[in-house]
């Protein structure tokens, strides 16, 4: 079930009415039922995958909980043991918790790996060794990367003792399957989400309208901008022989806009819908294109994925015994200054490798991840130079310089992202430099851009929408726009929403002639 469908709106309406009509103690159970229905619509046979992940993680959590409960009981009942005995008891419980966690990780990451990466591995082996192993073409369950990561974050936290495990399997299943975030995240943390997921919610008109506004805004981004740009992006990317030079620059620009509108719009719908059910989800974006450098960009784009990698890969790897040994060795061999960077950079590379692979089973994403990593490391290394530059040059503190930096970051990210859309890595590296040739430029502005099914009017709509994005982005800098809107008098407040709805219905790229496209992030 796509968010952009009447079916989804109908589903939402029914669930919404039931949610606030039923006694409040049934609310979370209704959400679970709704989520399962939602998932079953995607395809009933996929339910098995998400069920295995939910149940196995719940069970592992419960085992860990039992082990820790036994430890606590033992320590409480036998207060007069030595410190050593205490320590070894704690160690034993910790070890047990860890091994349960590891098993759970192997199982679930195993499923993810098999579903998502088997064909990638086969393809790579085939091209490396000239073999001809057939692709298996596994079905890719909806949102598998998202719910797997969310569950794995939970089990790691439980084994670390960060919070108590959820003992009720149904309640835990809701955490894994909660429908608004199934499609494309955000990747929630249990301690954060559980605060509002299971509680009873009164009909809070203010919260509900603000949620609805947010969702409407998301539909605007998706339907008016993202879906409208799909034909240009695919048209250029899939016909590299025809479209080079200027077209590639257009691709770089429009793909970034499309990705932004699609992904952040989808998240707006997700967060807005969740809010209508009284559930608070973590923000996934913080005006990413207002970032001044790529490190900052990655703190503000797809935030829940970034923090997931940081907490569960970057830190554990960086502080692992093995890495500390590497650190000692590199300091001895390379000197303190250089040596101390080795572990940080090694972990960074690992994280970006993982991020790349997470985004998709192809070398395009691996290269994309590593290029991001490279840019980050280079800018880290150039830090002292920047500091000097700022001291010397007065204009580096001006507003204009800030804007230049944002502009630069936008284009840097845009150029890296173009790896998403071309068929393979060599092709991408062949196409991007053609921008600097004279190819395609004159053709582009003499009707070439109108060959993809978009007319001048469509580009005008996109341009106007971008201006609106910019204004909303600037407003957002103060506080959430929904809150600002709520403070406005009744008439302008509703007028804005009313206009937005009409704009979506009339100018949305949907229906015949426009292929309702799946969310780009759906199967990442």
């Amino acid at each position, binding site marked *: 079930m796509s968010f952009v469908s*009447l079916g989804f709106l109908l589903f939402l309406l029914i669930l919404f009415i039931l949610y606030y009509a039923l006694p409040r103690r049934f609310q979370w159970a209704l959400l679970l039922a709704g989520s399962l229905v939602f998932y079953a619509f995607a395809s009933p046979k996929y339910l098995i995958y998400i069920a295995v992940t939910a149940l196995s993680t719940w069970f592992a959590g419960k085992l860990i909980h039992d082990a820790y409960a036994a430890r606590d009981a033992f320590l409480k009942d036998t207060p007069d043991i030595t410190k050593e005995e205490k320590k070894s008891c704690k160690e034993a419980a910790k070890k047990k918790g860890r091994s349960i966690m590891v098993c759970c990780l192997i199982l679930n990451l195993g499923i993810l790996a098999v579903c998502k990466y088997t064909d990638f591995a086969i393809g790579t082996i085939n091209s490396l060794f000239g073999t001809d192993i057939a692709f298996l073409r596994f079905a890719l369950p909806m949102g598998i990367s998202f719910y797997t990561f969310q569950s794995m974050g939970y089990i790691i936290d439980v084994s670390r003792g960060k919070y108590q495990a959820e003992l009720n399997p149904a309640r835990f299943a809701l955490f894994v399957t909660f429908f608004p975030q199934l499609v494309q995240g955000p990747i929630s943390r249990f301690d954060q989400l559980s605060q509002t997921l299971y509680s009873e919610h009164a009909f809070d*008109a203010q919260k509900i309208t603000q949620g609805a506004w947010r969702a409407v805004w998301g539909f605007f981004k998706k339907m008016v901008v993202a879906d409208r740009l799909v034909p240009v992006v695919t048209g250029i990317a899939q016909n590299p022989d025809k479209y080079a030079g200027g077209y590639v620059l257009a691709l770089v620009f429009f793909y970034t806009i499309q990705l932004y509108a699609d992904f952040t719009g989808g998240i707006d719908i997700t967060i807005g819908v969740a809010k209508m059910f009284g559930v608070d989800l973590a923000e996934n974006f913080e005006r990413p294109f207002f970032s001044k450098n790529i490190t900052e960009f990655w703190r503000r784009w797809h935030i829940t994925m970034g923090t997931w990698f940081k907490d569960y890969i970057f830190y554990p790897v960086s502080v692992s015994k093995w890495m500390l040994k590497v650190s000692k060795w590199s300091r001895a061999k390379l000197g303190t200054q250089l040596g101390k960077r080795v572990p940080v950079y090694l972990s960074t590379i690992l994280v970006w490798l993982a991020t790349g692979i997470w985004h998709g089973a192809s070398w395009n994403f691996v290269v994309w991840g590593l290029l991001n990593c490279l840019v980050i490391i280079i800018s880290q290394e150039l830090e002292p130079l920047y500091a000097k530059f700022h001291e010397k040059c007065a204009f580096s503190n001006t507003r204009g310089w800030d804007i230049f930096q944002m502009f630069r970051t936008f284009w840097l990210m845009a150029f890296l992202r173009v790896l998403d859309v071309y068929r393979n890595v060599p092709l991408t590296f062949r196409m991007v430099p053609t921008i600097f040739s004279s190819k395609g430029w004159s053709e582009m502005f003499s009707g070439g851009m109108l060959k993809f099914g978009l*007319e001048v*009017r469509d580009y005008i709509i996109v341009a106007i929408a971008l201006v609106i994005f910019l204004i909303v982005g600037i407003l957002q800098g103060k506080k959430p726009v929904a809150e600002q809107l709520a403070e406005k008098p*009744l008439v302008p407040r*509703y007028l804005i929403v*009313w206009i937005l*709805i*009409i704009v979506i*219905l*009339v*100018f*949305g790229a*949907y*229906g*015949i*002639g*426009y292929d309702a496209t799946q969310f780009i992030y759906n199967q990442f």
Partner: protein
Amino acid sequence: MKKRIVKIVICVVLLAATLFLLQKLLVPKYATTNEEGILSSEYYANAGNNDVLFIGDCEVYTNFSPVKLWRDYGITSYIRGTPQQLTWQSYYMLEDTLRYETPKVVVFNVLAMKYAEPQNEAYNRLTLDGMKWSTTKLDAVKASMTDEETVASYILPLLRFHSRWSELTSEDFNYLFKTEKLSHNGYLMRVDAKPAGQVPDPVPLPDYTIGPKCWEYLDKIRETCDKNGIRLILIKAPSLYPAWYDQWEKQIEDYAGKYGLEYINFLELADELEMDYNTDTYDAGLHLNLSGAEKMSAWFGKYLSEKCGVEDRRSDAALAAEWAEREAFYEYMKEAQYKQLREEGAVTRYK
């Protein structure tokens, strides 16, 4: 709380009203372009008291003149033909008509039997959008939809036509709340002529078998007629193009034979009709013009009254008054088109 509910109701009503107006504005009007689209909605103002019902594609709405049938034989009739009306759509047109009246004779043109599957969204729209809402329309929509279509876009045509915002013309504003009456009980008049000349040879087909869905709905048409005591007549209009293959003819003949139906192939009667393809068609043999349609009606009116016993109802004063109005409109349009021919050299508008 009460205040809040009032506010919400006002908001919803305002939004609904805007959307309604917007939809009115954005849907095609079929008043001065693609006029054929108006046909399917024009029926409802003329429902009741029609003894003969024609169903089928352009081969009915350009080839028979109900006014001529009335004038010469006192036969009341209506043509519920629409462009590329497919067999299942013809069936639902019949069903829809039965909600208003029960004719004595139903005439079905068999050309559409060549289409085994839903064909074209644009033509579906011309046939379906004008129908009034009923379960019959819903069934018709479901039977007709191509893969890309949705039921919702028929319930709310705004969902389909929203992107017309940049193509709006004065027509859309002029006909926002009114419609233009263009047909004569479903007949779309053209007085100009274009000789048929050399019609291209038919292109051989890999398979001439008429599809099961067509038979299924022809069965339904037949059964519905049986149930309602309606006489069903199958016809093939005398259009020279597109080709009507012998292999199709045989299958239709066999069907008619099997169920004891009348089947008239007007292509074979061209001489008897005194059809002159140099003067009786306005587009070189695809569609008949007024002269051709009146020749057809003269022949077929005789058949209807003599063979089928369709009554002469000219003695009914109320009906006669109604038809007098139609005749006047018929003459008016005829004159208007001849005037165009004289003054502009071509017919570009119906009126």
